[in-house]
């Protein structure tokens, strides 16, 4: 496979010329690559952002440790330190029973004010708000707190809801990952399948080249270049769509003020990374599809 530089140059020129000579086929292939990659780009952007949003929701999950009303100040302080010492705990914040009542009233809105009458007879507990380093650990940490700590009245982290959220997110993540992998493989298959068809249509030419004394590599190289060109040309539009589309949505997401709670992945570096991935898929599959499809017609 040692090759003169001028031969390499010849192969590149020939590959470009061939794309031009088979302009119909090239156009159709590029169109197929383009549509497929747009699909991949849109879908990847969607699923990765949903995952990001889900993670954001999980971040908000906290454990509220309600302190036994019989505990004195010293014991409360001890409990706080002990909680702080737990593995995987990010922060522990104290919230007195008065603050708790205030919070509750605020969260209940207008109806809550009616309860203001009962401020003197506050039935609530002091509380520690514990945040886990990894949201996923929340349930485990809560279990440890219940079992191992004294002066803990109850532990509250919206057990049902949080459990549901995590389970749902986990399932959704699995489904998302499966769909992404499936879609990428589908894209790979569709692209290489299209290329294969165009090369089946050119089998006679490949046979003639072999008959004139061309080695397999001599024939493969221009196809390599053609595949590369196909992949790169086919990536341009998807990447353009990705950039403008994401930019547009990113800008307008802020304007639709109901969606404060939805935070998209930041434009840089996310879109750049995704664009790189799209280009990579295009180029690699283009080359691979071309070279592989040629292979079966080289045995002449």
């Amino acid at each position: 496979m040692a090759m003169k530089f001028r031969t390499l140059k010849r192969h590149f020129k020939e590959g470009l010329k061939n794309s031009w000579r088979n302009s119909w086929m090239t156009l159709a292939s590029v169109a197929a690559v383009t549509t497929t990659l747009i699909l991949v780009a849109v879908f990847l952007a969607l699923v990765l952002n949903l995952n990001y949003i889900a993670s954001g929701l999980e971040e908000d999950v906290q454990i509220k440790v309600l302190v036994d009303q019989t505990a004195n100040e010293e014991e409360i302080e001890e409990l706080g330190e002990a909680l702080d010492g737990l593995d995987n705990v990010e922060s522990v914040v104290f919230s007195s029973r008065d603050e708790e009542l205030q919070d509750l009233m605020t969260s209940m809105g207008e109806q809550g004010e009616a309860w203001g009458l009962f401020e003197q007879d506050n039935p609530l507990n002091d509380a520690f708000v514990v945040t886990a380093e990894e949201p996923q650990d929340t349930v485990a940490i809560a279990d440890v707190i219940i079992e191992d700590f004294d002066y803990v009245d109850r532990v509250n982290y919206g057990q049902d809801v949080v459990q549901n959220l995590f389970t749902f997110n986990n399932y959704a993540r699995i489904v998302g990952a499966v769909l992404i992998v499936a879609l990428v493989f589908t894209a790979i298959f569709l692209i290489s399948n299209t290329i294969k068809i165009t090369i089946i249509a050119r089998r006679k030419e490949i046979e003639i080249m072999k008959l004139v004394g061309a080695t397999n590599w001599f024939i493969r190289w221009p196809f390599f270049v053609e595949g590369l060109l196909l992949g790169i040309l086919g990536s341009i539009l998807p990447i353009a769509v990705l950039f403008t589309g994401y930019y547009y949505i990113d800008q307008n997401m802020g304007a639709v003020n109901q969606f404060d709670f939805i935070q998209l992945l930041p434009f840089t570096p996310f879109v750049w990374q995704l664009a790189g991935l799209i280009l990579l898929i295009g180029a690699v599959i283009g080359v691979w599809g071309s070279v592989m499809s040629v292979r079966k017609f080289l045995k002449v």
Partner: protein
Amino acid sequence: MIEMQQVKKTYPNGVTALNGIDINIDPGEFVYLVGQSGAGKSTFIKLIFREEMASSGQIRVNNKDLLEMKWRDVPLLRREIGVVYQDFKLLPKMTVYENVAFALEVVEESPRQIRKRVMEVLDQVGLKNKARFIPDELSGGEQQRVAIARAMANYPKLLIADEPTGNLDPDTSWEIMKILEEINGTGTTIIMATHSKEIVNTIKRRVIAIEGGLIVRDQHRGEYGYEV
């Protein structure tokens, strides 16, 4: 140059095209291959540059055993042989120039050398002014001459031509024959399948007649004919 012993060729569909060929062709010879339509001439030719593989027997070309040969080495064999195919086998998307140049590119000739040689052979077959046309824009005879130009471009040791004058008028045919004789004069072995009684009987050379897959006559300075 070419040695065949008991060569048989049966195609996948069961047709036996050659049925026990023994032949020796020496370097520098000029051989006519004659025979009826379907006799096996093209099959004989295809065996020599391994477009087809013999079903049994022994073939040596240029001291290479074609049946033991590795796939890898087949292109090297083919580069020593120039072939004018009965159906031309031009690359349809390439211009006349590119078609001929291709045969030189595969041996990694220098671009300057290629340019010079291509125009030279196109001139010889009278197609210098059609270099930029694609095969579909040529007449039948012009396509045939492109095929001839490509076959001789690389100064092959062996030149095989399968009815190279089938689509040519008598004048052009004689010109092509003159070229072939010249090439033969420089030591190139030439094998030419033909149906032209006139050519075979005028330029007298060795005549091998094939009939029903067998060599029925092998005569130096022979006449056209394939009856037993």
